[in-house]
């Protein structure tokens, strides 16, 4: 698997996601946001967590206007794989590569803790390392992770199996407990929890590892 990790000013999980991808066997290239092209032959583009441009406008809104964003959109529209975690998920919704928006947490506070999740769709490349309905534990760390979409969109997401992960004990007010969704073609995943923070026994949990390993396996088979 050839992966690119986009680095915006203010990204701070870029190294973490690169470590997890390399551990799963990926070749990883870091791509600066002012670049206007992705490296040739990239299978996966990862949009990392952090506070791109300080999140001083809506989270992810300015990052979505970066030069690299056009290349990212083209990659996705061409059927490429995209993984957005936390701030990355927010960027993907701002780019309209995924529907909905991430609002301020219902409790108004930043929350960093490990939470239970249910894998609601194990049929995507990203979730192929899990069993459908499996309960896993991953850390969350965000101030704006409250997933919102209108009723029609939510119905479509559920009906088409686009909800990838739901919270066991909704920490942030997300509609329908949504923690992560995939695009209609299943190749763009946005999620608020951090699988890269549960990818090593030293992290105190390894439930995130299957996401990267499953993705690497699935892409080898493509």
């Amino acid at each position, binding site marked *: 698997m050839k992966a690119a990790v986009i680095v915006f000013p203010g990204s701070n999980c870029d190294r973490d996601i690169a470590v997890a991808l390399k551990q799963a066997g990926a070749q990883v290239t870091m791509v600066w946001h002012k670049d206007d092209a992705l490296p040739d032959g990239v299978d996966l583009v990862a949009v990392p967590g952090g506070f791109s441009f300080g999140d001083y406008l809506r989270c992810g809104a300015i990052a979505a206007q970066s030069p690299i964003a056009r290349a990212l959109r083209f990659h996705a529209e061409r059927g490429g794989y995209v993984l957005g975690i936390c701030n990355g998920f927010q960027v993907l919704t701002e780019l309209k590569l995924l529907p909905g928006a991430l609002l301020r947490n219902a409790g108004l*506070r930043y929350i*960093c803790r490990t939470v239970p999740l249910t894998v609601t769709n194990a049929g995507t490349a990203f979730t192929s390392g899990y069993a459908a309905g499996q309960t896993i534990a991953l850390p969350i760390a965000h101030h704006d992770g409250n997933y919102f979409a209108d009723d029609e969109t939510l119905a479509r997401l559920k009906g088409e199996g686009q909800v990838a992960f739901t919270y066991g004990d909704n920490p942030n007010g997300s509609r329908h407990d949504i923690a992560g969704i995939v695009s209609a073609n299943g190749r763009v995943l946005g999620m608020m929890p951090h699988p890269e923070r549960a990818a090593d026994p030293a992290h105190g949990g390894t439930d995130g590892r299957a996401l990267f390993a499953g993705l690497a396996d699935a892409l080898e088979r493509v």
Partner: protein
Amino acid sequence: MTEPDITPEVIAAHGFTPDEYAEVLRILGREPTFTELGIFSAMWNEHCSYKSSKKWLRTLPTSGPQVICGPGENAGVVDIGDGQAVVFKMESHNHPSYIEPHQGAATGVGGILRDVFTMGARPIAAMNALSFGVPEHPKTRHLINGVVEGIGAYGNAFGVPTVGGEVRFHPSYNGNCLVNAFAAGLADADRIFYSAASGVGMPVVYLGAKTGRDGVGGATMASAEFDDTIEEKRPTVQVGDPFTEKCLLEACLELMASGAVISIQDMGAAGLTCSAVEMGDKGGLGIRLNLDRVPQRETAMSAYEMMLSESQERMLMVLKPEKEAEARAIFEKWDLDFAIVGETIPEDRFLILHGNEIVADLPLSKLSSSAPEYDRPWEPGPRRTDVPEVPDIPALDALTVLLTSPDLAHKAWVWEQYDTQVMGDTVRPPGCGAGIVRVHGTPKLLAFTSDVTPRYVAANPVEGGKQAVAEAYRNLTACGATPLAATDNLNFGNPEKPKIMGQFVGAIQGIGEACRALAMPIVSGNVSLYNETDGSGILPTPTIGAVGLISSADRLIGGAAREGDVALLLGTTHGHLGQSALLWHVMGRDAGDAPAVDLSAERAHGDFVRENLARIGGCTDLSDGGLAIAAFEMAEAGGTGVALDAGDLPTLFGEDQARYLIAAAPDDAEALLAAAAAAGVPLARVGAFGGSDLRLGDQGAPMAELTEAWRGVFPALFGA
């Protein structure tokens, strides 16, 4: 631009005593300009000059084979082997945090992170030691919410994991909260950057964010007591921008790697003034600055305002001239200001130009090395000889009172607002003794703790000072770490009062003795005095931040007990209740003397833990609340119960020092008892872990009930 006249009112408003101003006149041989007066004031205030504390700080041990750089630079530097170094410091932001809690705390975090990366280190861990007034006080809820949110807002966005800290409450902090921020970074031991300028005619470069009027006079404000004019002080609090700081970090590390940096200094208290003077003074050079070239956020700023601004996220650097284009390109990449604002000069002058006029022309070395220094009168406090009575309360009720006291209650409410895991190397987040991170890409771990028991220091400054160091030593030891060094953040009241100065002198003596005995030199630190409101001082609070090294992850000792483990107590129990959490929280009394600290026992017991760690399942140090609290916490962490044989209050809640609670499987426990007997170290079985109840002698309660009460305190007090 015309400057205000120098009147007695202007002089007094800058915090000068008549003698200090006479010294300014003597040095200059003339009256200073308004800008010059501001510069002197910024350099000579307590916050920057340490004029009341220097005499005593010199007595602290600051060296050791592991120390690469001790106090005097932006942060201390300690060798961790393999050509790597840990760079760390703790610093207070007390006064700003009381005036504006969110921004005050946020910029405290920003300042300490800058101190660390100025030295060439990437920050890898942060901690915060917070002291607030009692929860019932009308300001406390506002302060704790604002401070915790501000720390989170800055550290989370910057991307450093917050792995530890303390939160305490006491009425003496009602009008003066304490926010002590710690940061540690990782650097190559041979690539540390210092502040001393070298070479004449070298460009002085301004880096980072633009200069505004925020924080003008902040250091002077932080050197005064509070009174009812406090609301008027709000404009002296700076506003933090963690995004710019994150960019500044990355740009500075790239710049340092490029070889362009001769010396570098962050702009903290007294901004441009203090940073330029330090670089010149340490290098034995003068500095010329042209303020017309300073990147400015606002129009029509005066020289005085620019020299005293405490706008955040700024650095000053002396650049290798041949590297200018390369250096400028790095800052342009990160969209940060890069401006050559002056140069080093051979003569001892601090020459400031603004609008084609000389606005200040001062002998540079006099600003720093000639700053006033005081040997303030001090008196030792009266020795506490009263023997406290033992409360008449069942042990289990006492435990419940302690577990639900805000000092000992579960603090997830605080640390869940901090990103504890960013960088992917956090091995132990807050909540279980020392915080631990991996040294990225190596088997090594670094452990961090911050400790002090202000009640002890108030009752007995010398023993209280020792105890703060000893508790830090124990917290590092309990996870298997070898303590390396410490940083001290000394928070006290008004040093012009002999009683307060006596607390300071005593605490320093105790800290020094303990640091020597435990081989934990002080490598950096900060003094915060005048923590008083309307004449009433805080409890003396010398916070000790300490760092330990674990050579590989398999030498890490956990903090949890397992079902079936034996509970072993290492150390001697006399049942000392003076100044204990039991007396304070159960009876509302601070009676008696602080516990005595036997430093040779501390050392021996610490070495025993490290030498026998393979047989230790879990370990925690005994501190506030003694054996009963330690047993509860270890059982809770392991999801099990515990039964302690003792049922009397002195044994369960005494706060004798040099003690650890160890959980070990029965075979290991036997081996540990034999090893202790052979080593002449006191180790005894005090109970067993297991089941779902907590039992103290013949009384018991379900762990689930106690845990729920313990966890519920903070949300109930400060908002869910």
